[in-house]
């Protein structure tokens, strides 16, 4: 039946199924690898390759359809809603690890040190002499001695980098709205560069933590929360920077108009989300 009317109906597509297949191979491979089967690692790579091909193909298809003018205003709204609620789900994902940090610092570590103990002093019996201090690797001194990661070295520099990248991203958006292609592309190049610089500095920070400070993922609950929070954030910075690179490529190809640029907006929202999460990390993980 004809759909030449108010509603847009997309064509069928094989990429959702391909992507699912890729993800399953990736996960099954990873699980096998964790269980000690070396071949799992190869399946991981295969699954990842399939997944990347899927992403490239699916997004190319979407970009072509968009450039062919197939999407009406309503489709744009649906996409924006989808992105918004996806970011919301990501916020909830990070909330778990922030919550874990809060619980550990305010409840589990004090409790292990005997705060709130009744007359029986159960903690003294189990973990004698354990003090409620932060950072800690627990009463078992799990992972051995370590140094705390300070806030005002690389992390502070990274904060400045990421905040500036938020500014350049918005500057690029203004360029797009004003049909100033030069400003759009320069702004995006700056944003992507700052993003990857951030990741590079974080890699140096991790290297120092592991090789000079004795701070690892296994350094008790401090190491666990530190690397889990900053690690997942770093991963999201990578994803955001890749998204913005694609947007940069499309801008360079001449896509996007002031009215129709969902891809730019979606990536920019994601970038600001990553930015805000970092501010939370800088305050709660590094400073406090």
């Amino acid at each position, binding site marked *: 039946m004809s759909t030449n009317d108010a509603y847009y109906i*997309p064509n069928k597509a094989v990429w959702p199924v391909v992507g699912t297949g890729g993800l399953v191979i990736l996960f099954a491979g990873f699980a096998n690898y964790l269980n000690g089967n070396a071949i799992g690692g190869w399946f991981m790579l295969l699954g990842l390759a399939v997944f990347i091909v899927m992403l490239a193909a699916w997004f190319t298809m979407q970009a072509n359809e968009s450039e062919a003018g197939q999407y009406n205003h309503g489709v744009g709204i649906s996409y924006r809603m989808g992105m918004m*609620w996806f970011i919301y789900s990501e916020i909830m994902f990070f909330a778990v690890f922030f919550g874990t940090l809060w619980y550990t610092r305010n409840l589990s570590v004090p409790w292990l040190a005997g705060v709130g103990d009744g007359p029986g002093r159960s903690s003294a019996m189990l973990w004698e002499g354990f003090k409620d201090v932060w950072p800690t690797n627990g009463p078992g001194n799990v992972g051995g001695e370590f140094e705390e990661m300070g806030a005002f070295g690389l992390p502070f520099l990274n904060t400045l980098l990421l905040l500036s990248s938020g500014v350049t991203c918005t500057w690029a958006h203004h360029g797009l709205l004003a049909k100033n292609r030069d400003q759009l592309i320069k702004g995006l190049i700056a944003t992507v560069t700052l993003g990857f610089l951030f990741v590079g500095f974080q890699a140096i920070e991790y290297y120092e933590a592991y090789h000079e400070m004795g701070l690892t993922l296994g350094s008790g609950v401090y190491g666990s929360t530190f690397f889990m929070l900053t690690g997942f954030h770093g991963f999201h910075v990578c994803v955001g920077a890749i998204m913005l690179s694609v947007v940069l490529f499309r801008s360079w190809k001449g896509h996007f108009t002031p009215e129709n640029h969902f891809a730019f907006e979606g990536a920019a929202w994601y970038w600001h989300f990553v930015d805000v999460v970092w501010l939370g990390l800088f305050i709660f993980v590094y400073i406090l």
Partner: protein
Amino acid sequence: MSAVTAEHDHHDHGPAKGLLRWVVTTNHKDIGTLYLVFSLAMFFVGGTMALIIRSELFEPGMQFVNPQFFNSMTTMHALVMVFGAVMPAFVGLANWMIPMMIGAPDMALPRMNNMSFWMLVAGILLLASTFFMEGGAPAAGWTMYPPLVLQTGNALPFAIFSVHLLGISSIMGAINIIATIFNMRAPAMSLMKMPLFVWTWLITAFLLVAIMPVFAGAVTMLLTDRFFDTSFFDAAGGGDPVLYQHIFWFFGHPEVYVMILPTFGVASQIIPVFARKPLFGYSSMVFATAAIAFLSFIVWAHHMFTVGMPMAGELYFMYATMLIAIPTGVKIFNWTATMWKGAMTFEAPMLFSIAFVVLFTMGGFTGLMMALAPLDFQYHDTYFIVAHFHYTLVPASVFMIMAAGYFWLPKWTGNMYDEKLAKLHFWLSAISVNILFFPQHFLGLAGMPRRIPDYAVQFADWNMISSIGAFIYGPSQLIFVYIVYKTIKGGTGEKVTDEVWEGAKEHSLEWTLPSPAPYHTFSTPPKEVPTLSTSRS
């Protein structure tokens, strides 16, 4: 697939040929059917596991399976029923019905819709594969509490990644539903004219987007605790296994409402039609649903009363939990008031709905009993809790899924189902479900713990009765499969009208469409929609 130049704009919007149709489809009805068929299959897979459990518990002593396998059965039964049967069944209903109810041609994000379904299949396959692994399938309970769950064999990473896939699937499905409801409604369909099924699903979708990432985070920490030396749930490193329980139930309590809110929605569609009256208190139904959803986020630790929380925590979670009885009571009252003085008839969907109202109320009351922290110390981890949540899931969620099947099958297929057989199915189910679960209250109060393959002889009688109920309930569900199959193949031969049920047009838009409904529902938005709120505004 990649032919997307402008001149191909309007090609092939009908179904693809052959089996490929089901693989690449972006159509909400196709995807809805896939979800429903898959969930029905999983219902029998999970049901078989339940029958294995009930066989072993038929008599005291060890009969058929070893304890490890028994524990795998309880764990996998729960995971398969929750993530494979009940949730997908409601997503299937949402796919079929929401576009038809709000006057839309399809879901807002149809390709993601397809991916959401296949991710579900992938997740369940990954979970099922654990049966064939060293150490067996997960056996630490569906809640996967550490440190016990960390002793799982090779299955652990597979179970965790399965949860990730199921989570991605649910989040995509939920985002799609939110975008559809907010963006695809016919212009005349204001929010307070939406049928209750749409409302309950909108609120459920918000729950899903908020909680599935939380579950993903929790199991990710299990993974790193086991394989990457972290100490999140290990006291020696400064962590706390109870932290996992907090995070899990922050997900888990809204999760059980994910399974009950759409149930409420289906009941709110069916009861007015067969009572031939508008739904009583439409707007209070909407607000009660929202209130239940909000409360679900602030009551999680009532699952953990015996874990050793500070007294202030016990009291807070007790009172907060009891609050839920208020909006739930509003709903029960409204359904009853809808039936009051109605010109009622008792076709299968209505029979199931009435059974739901009565039996769910009972499940609600036992919930209230367990909300009382001091009493919960007695009930905790006994068969009383098993009886409670099965009353809220089987004669509530499962009954209403099947009621929805009877209610909408004529609209979907254009054929009428066999009412006589459906009534037989109802009476067998309604009676046997009580034989199955009611005695479990007594077992729990007497102190029989859950998740054990053997028990003291004093529990023998009620266990045997419960198992007999199970062996009536399980096989009688095959009648449903037969009825559905027969209806698809032509049913009673009687062609149904567009309205199907007398006066149904006044309640919701799907009854204004032809039966069976066209492949794409509304190609242009409908001009008029039914008014459901009875208040003058």
